[in-house]
């Protein structure tokens, strides 16, 4: 059985490596499962009902099923709708930001250029988890 983990939905291999390597270097206690799009993410949730992720980190632009469509699906499902979702994307488009917050996301983060800022953003996810009550249940 998977220990506590982040479900990270990202179709880009470089971004996935970057995210997981940065998490590993921060010695984050949560594990990580990476899926390439919303459809694979949904299938993973359906196949692991007894071991759902503790946080979902989500890119928006993915093939087959994008981040917004995935978000709509999980938010209407009582089994998944309480899992905190953080959007992690290169898009700073206002429409994207507003439409995702309308689906009660926990946060929206724009991937920065600067490597130090990128690491700080991942640390924020870690700190959010460490500080939140969900992390101590």
């Amino acid at each position, binding site marked *: 059985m998977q220990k506590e983990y982040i479900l990270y939905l990202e179709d*880009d*291999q*470089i*971004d996935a*490596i*970057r995210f997981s*390597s*940065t998490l590993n*270097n921060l010695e984050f206690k949560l594990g990580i499962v990476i899926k390439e799009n919303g459809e694979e993410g949904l299938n993973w949730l359906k196949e692991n009902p007894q071991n759902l992720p503790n946080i979902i980190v989500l890119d928006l*632009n993915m093939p087959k099923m994008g981040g917004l469509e995935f978000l709509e699906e999980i938010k209407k499902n009582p089994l998944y709708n309480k899992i905190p979702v953080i959007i992690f994307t*290169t*898009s700073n*488009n206002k429409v994207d930001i507003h439409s995702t917050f309308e689906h009660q996301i926990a946060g929206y983060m724009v*991937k*920065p*250029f*600067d*490597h130090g800022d*990128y690491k700080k953003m991942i640390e924020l996810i870690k700190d959010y988890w460490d500080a939140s009550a969900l992390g101590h249940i």
Partner: protein
Amino acid sequence: MKILYIEDDVIDQKNCQIILNQKEDINLTVVDQFEKAFDFISKEKIDVLISDQRVGMDHFKDHWHQFLGIPYFIVSNSPDENLNTLLQPPLQLFQKPFQVEHSDNIVKKMESLKAEPNLSYAENITEGAPDLLTEMVFILKSQFEEGIDKIPYLYEKKNTEELIQVVHKLISKFSVLSMSESFSFFNRVEKCLRDQLTLNNFAYKRLVTDLQEGLNFINFYIKQHELHNS
């Protein structure tokens, strides 16, 4: 350095020409209308644009997107600070008349923008995992090659939707290569395309040249470190 100067006042034109022609390695072209500037940059590559804020009845802020990807400076009797809020703001606003110190500032600013691609970040985050670094490098290579291949085709076919996706996916790769100007440029192109703004074909050419610069470095890195794609 190839500079294009947009100015309809003959005296101001002459003043700028005298000052910039004193600098070595500057190739200056002057035009008196924005339309002539668009035409010029669609055919010839320039390094820097200097423009009056208002040329005839036209204001630069209505045409900035046509110069997307070209670093520019504004020279004006009353420089408009609001230009700094544009998606691609001017590098600097100068009060007329154009002076020697302005030309020095332009040269210094352009020097500061030069940044060599590198993979130190990727090396850092994959430390202790050379296979992972190799994997990253070859994925980058493949993505850049695909971008170089797809962008001209999508531009020619006016397939804006797919072009947006291709540009979007490449943005973060420039971060991995520490190519900050390219990162910003690709970001701006994506935003302009989503806002359905007309871009000069210079911008599309620059998408490819920036990718080629990244790819040249990646190929050099592969050769230098004798990496092999498993």
